[in-house]
């Protein structure tokens, strides 16, 4: 499971394809996350929580 911000999503596509793992589960985060503050990071975590769990369950 990879957490990838929207700005780096195309790079994630590229690496996943080049490694032969194009079905690698990934969850998209807004950009930037680093340095955006505790409150924002907690909000992002809540927003992606269900998607993250669903992705893990599919594995």
């Amino acid at each position, binding site marked *: 499971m990879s957490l990838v911000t929207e*700005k780096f999503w195309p790079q994630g596509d590229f690496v996943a394809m080049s490694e032969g793992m194009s079905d690698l589960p990934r969850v998209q985060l807004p*950009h*930037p996350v*680093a*340095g*955006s*503050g*505790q*409150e*924002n990071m907690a909000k992002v975590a809540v927003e992606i929580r269900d998607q993250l769990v669903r992705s893990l369950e599919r594995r």
Partner: protein
Amino acid sequence: MSTALLTAPDEAAALEELHRLGCTDGLPVIIPTQERVDRMVLATGLDPGDIIGEMGPLMGAASVEKVAAAAVMAGCLPDHVPVVIAAIKAMCQPEFDLREMQATTHCTAPLLIVNGPVRNTAGIASGFGVMGPGHRANASIGRAVRLAMINIGGARPGESDMALHGHPGKFAFCIAEDEENSPFPPLHTTFGYEPTQSVVTVVGAEAPHSAFFIGDADDPDGSAEELLAILASMIAAPGTNNLVLGGEGAVIVVMNPDHTAVLEAAGYDRVKTQQRLADLAVVPAEQARRLHPRQFANFKGDEVKAIRHPEQVIIVQAGGTGLYSMVMPTWNAGAHRNQAVHEAIDLDQACEVPWATST
């Protein structure tokens, strides 16, 4: 330098001859045939014999035709050449000290910073990898300026260009400012130009040094102060000419969008940022004397300043979003102490010409 037309049996032989004569940067070039140069001149809308300036140390006359030849060799498109002409015009201003800058043992290279509409018409990149490979306009424009410095200005490594090491930016060093996403006004407007004008700013610069910083949106004021302290510490690194030679000249800070956002959140504009960097870019005199006992033996004062003229801190936003900004210390020498110069890019004269690389 001779302006005689060289001849060769074919393009491969012509390339080898240009390499042998020292007319290249070491990489293959497009052969500047008379037809290609004529078409590039036509694209400028100028007379081939118009003189843009004199380029030292050879003091060669930079005619439009010769500059067009450099642009052809570098792989420029016609849309690129007005930027090349303006950059060379800027570098020929006395304040740039081109002759001395070409000849110095320091590694300095002219960094071109492009503002205004030409960024879009010429396709000059300002985002991810802005100083690296993969951006045709940036690479071609920067390379054309270098080839002009070699072939018109006469710079030859170890002979007339005495840089001990040089740096990779001496191949090509051209960026655009990310005006659309910057919280600061476009750089050229700080020199009195209108936002709708296209302008190139040129400043001799070292290679970029990376500055790592993660802010904290919960502490905007503290984050901005930390970021500025990091940038200032790099400007005032004890090995830089900015510190050792008195801090009279320019320094360049190329900030990524996340870092300018940190400054904006704390209420910093460009002028306030320049002033704060100047305040912070200091080294205790005791440290300076210990590291440079001869240079600072007679220094009076408690601290050595790396920036004496805040307006000479050239701050632009460029590059991708993330953790790194770039600091470029400078040579800080020559009669004018490494000032930034600028020139409007004249797009009114330019003509649209059919272009193909096969001719």
